[in-house]
């Protein structure tokens, strides 16, 4: 298992008593951008041997994609990608383990405000995506919907507002294409 956002959300949903199906559906949507990564990296990776493909498939995170996607076919170095990917995976597991150890030993860890670090990380990942009007609309709709739905404690608030934002962005994009 190597998917930060999905793991954090799943823990939150498990704690909140969400059903297995709704958790899996959220995870499916939340990690669906990896379909696009796979599609993008297809030219580089699909000619490789099965062993390499499976390894790269496992390691292909947002971060690895961010570091390798701009490389052309000549510059794409599989050993570089493997090194980066394995380093991320090793550190991810090390710090998760440290978190488990510390979490059960430090009292009041929940009140330290570490949840802000999640928000800060996501903000840092979202901002570079917001390059045009459709993504602005997407983010605004998603934000308003999730605050509203979470406030009224609607079941599946995350997935519903995420989809609402995505739909708004998509519609806006198509609408602009028609108008221009």
């Amino acid at each position, binding site marked *: 298992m190597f*998917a930060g*956002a999905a793991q954090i959300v799943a823990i939150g949903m*498990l704690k909140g008593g969400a059903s297995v199906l709704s958790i899996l559906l959220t995870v499916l949507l939340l990690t669906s951008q990896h379909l696009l990564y796979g599609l993008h990296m297809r030219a580089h990776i*699909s000619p490789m041997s099965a062993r390499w493909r499976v390894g790269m498939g496992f390691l292909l995170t947002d971060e690895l994609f961010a570091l390798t996607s701009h490389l052309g076919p000549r510059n794409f170095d599989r050993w570089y990608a493997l090194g980066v990917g394995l380093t991320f995976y090793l550190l991810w597991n090390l710090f998760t383990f440290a978190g488990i150890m510390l979490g059960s030993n430090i009292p009041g860890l929940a009140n330290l405000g570490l949840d802000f670090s999640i928000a*800060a990380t996501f*903000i840092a*990942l979202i901002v570079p995506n917001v390059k045009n009007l459709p993504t602005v609309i997407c983010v605004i709709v998603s934000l308003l919907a999730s605050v509203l739905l979470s406030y009224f404690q609607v079941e599946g608030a995350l997935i519903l507002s995420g989809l609402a934002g995505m739909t708004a962005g998509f519609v806006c994009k198509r609408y602009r294409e028609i108008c221009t």
Partner: protein
Amino acid sequence: MKAWLVIGFMSAIVFMNRYVFLEPRLPLRLGRNLRDFLGFAVPGLLTAICAPIVFLPDHQLDLSPTNPYLLAGVFAVAIMLWKKSVLMTLITSMAVFYLLRWLL
């Protein structure tokens, strides 16, 4: 038990999402509509996850200027727009967050 079930299925879903288009025997491609729709997955879903953390600390709507989550969140957006560095945004916005929590 439920947790292990979720972990097992999650691993499979995440891996399939990443691997399916790396498989050379797969001939199909995503349609343009689905591809464009999925293009909004990162901003749409990540926003939906982090908005309640920022606007609803302790599950209470807090739009006041003394909400450290909100202020530090706005700061994080600004510093990311300005410096375009994930690491710097994380470090400085965490520092601002704890400073505000201590002050307010």
